[in-house]
């Protein structure tokens, strides 16, 4: 089976993002870009399934401008067999991304699609669920454990433990299915130098966004960016008694 993995490039999680003074966006010039952390986890899970013999091929997918190639090479260096680069200069919203994935699914016929539960730039947490709806297949979101069982006929199911507010939920999903990853699913491997060299020989298919026939209309328009309201530093108390007195005075204890 093939596994398709979403591999988005985002502002690195260590960067403290700044809003432009005129409210037109956030400062991204010269800012370090990295793989979305949840997508690294998605790729790691796919690679482990391949190493267990569940999958034969892992394909990383990126949607973005021409220079996204370098980012996709990182996914190949981590261990993906090949990459698909859907080229567009415009940022795509989740519904459009899901429609792109659906087109790639029709072509690649994967048994599993693994995506990060959210990208840490727009924090939307939508693409996997939307894709599963458009594909009319199961979704197992916020996965912290994935087990795949295949029967002889090639059919299979995923037993997925999901991190939900009430605890850990276990569901079964017939394949093909969409899984989105939570933080505790695995710890992604580091890329080693020889793998970077090897990745240069791996194929990256380039597809123009316009050639996919996907409706690109975005329903949401961002009209303003603002910095969040700041909490100001409070007071230091000297001991437990003073703290209890202060909280009692505010009616909190």
């Amino acid at each position, binding site marked *: 089976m093939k596994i398709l993995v979403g591999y988005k490039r985002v*502002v690195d999680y260590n960067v*403290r993002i700044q*809003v432009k003074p005129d409210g037109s966006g956030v400062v991204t010039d010269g800012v370090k870009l990295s793989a979305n952390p949840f997508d690294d986890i998605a790729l790691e899970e796919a690679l482990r399934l391949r190493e267990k013999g569940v999958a034969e091929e892992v394909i990383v997918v990126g949607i973005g401008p021409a220079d996204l190639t370098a980012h996709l090479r990182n996914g190949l260096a981590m261990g993906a067999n090949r990459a698909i680069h859907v080229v567009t200069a415009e940022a795509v919203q*989740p*519904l459009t991304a*899901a429609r792109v994935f659906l087109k790639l699914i029709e072509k690649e016929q994967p048994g599993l699609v693994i995506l990060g539960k959210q990208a*840490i730039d727009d*924090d*939307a*947490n*939508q693409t996997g*669920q*939307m*894709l*599963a*709806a*458009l594909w009319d*297949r*199961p*979704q197992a*979101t*916020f996965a912290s454990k994935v087990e795949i069982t295949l029967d002889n006929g090639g059919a299979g199911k995923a*037993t997925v433990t*999901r*991190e*939900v*507010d*009430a*605890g*850990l*939920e*276990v*569901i*079964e*999903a*017939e394949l093909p299915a969409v899984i989105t990853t*939570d*933080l*505790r699913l695995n710890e992604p491997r580091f890329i080693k130098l020889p793998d970077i060299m090897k990745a240069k020989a791996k194929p990256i298919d380039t597809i123009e966004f316009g050639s996919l026939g996907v409706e690109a209309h975005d329903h*949401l*328009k*961002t*009209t*303003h*960016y603002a*910095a*969040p309201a700041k909490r100001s*530093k*409070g*007071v*230091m*108390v000297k*001991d*437990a008694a003073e*703290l*209890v007195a202060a*909280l009692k005075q*505010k009616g*909190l*204890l």
Partner: protein
Amino acid sequence: MSKILVIAEHLGGKLNSSTARAVSAAAAVKAEAIDVLVLSDAPDAIAAEAAKIDGVSRVLTVARPENAHPLAAVLAPQIAKAAAGYSHVFVPSTTFGKDVAPRVAALLGVAQVSDVMSVEAAHAFKRPIYAGNAIITVEADATHTVVATIRSASWAAAGNGANSAPIEALTIDAALPTHTRFVELKQGSSDRPDLQSASKVVSGGRGVGSKENFDIIYKFADKIGAAVGASRAAVDAGYVPSEMQVGQTGKIIAPELYMAIGISGAIQHLTGIKDAGTIVAINKDGEAPIFEIADFGLVGDLFKLIPELEQALG
């Protein structure tokens, strides 16, 4: 005029308070009607609770055995059908809502507005991006249904008691898939207040040091009637189960009192508590970032200070 359908979240036959918070967001749209949809195998008791929430016009129920557990693949086609005639569909931005709402949006062919913090106009909303380090105003296409998840920590629960909205049973003609099946929910049983809705929360971090040591946090929380939370570091270290995690990737909460004990205050944790009323930090490192946002800070050894706090409480 707007007509809003709010999807009820419930567990074990009880309505989750996130539903009343989503109703508050719906009220902010100044809708002419706010209907609450309860999908369950046994919706009656849940619907009766929802009918009491102020501002609710009607409660609609869909009773089907397939709705016994909240599987997005099963619920979404029913919600998408029920959404006909509504201008907005609001769902709490909890793991329940985050799972099901995008599936509904995709079935309707519309975008979703995630984590609504405020309503600026019927089709304009504020929401956080970059872990809350920027707040954007988004405008949704007014010719389409708005599907949105409502960030619980930004909204007080709508009051209840004065209302008794009519309850109507719906029959929804939707083919439901069988490709996704519920197996089990592993829940830590606890008599403590619910972390998401508690007015007081005591959280422990890496500084607590072990699973056994966490007893001191539980004991103190019980003494003041608080829910118990934890930092990601404490969860990753195995001190407590994952459902107790507070932060960007855990629960985002807004209690009146939040006490962070042995938590240094990584950005991802602070994202989860920014909307708390009063934040108290207890940490042995006076330079810990948690003190930058705490209303009250106390530097010292938590194992010495917690007994002293208990004593001071009498």
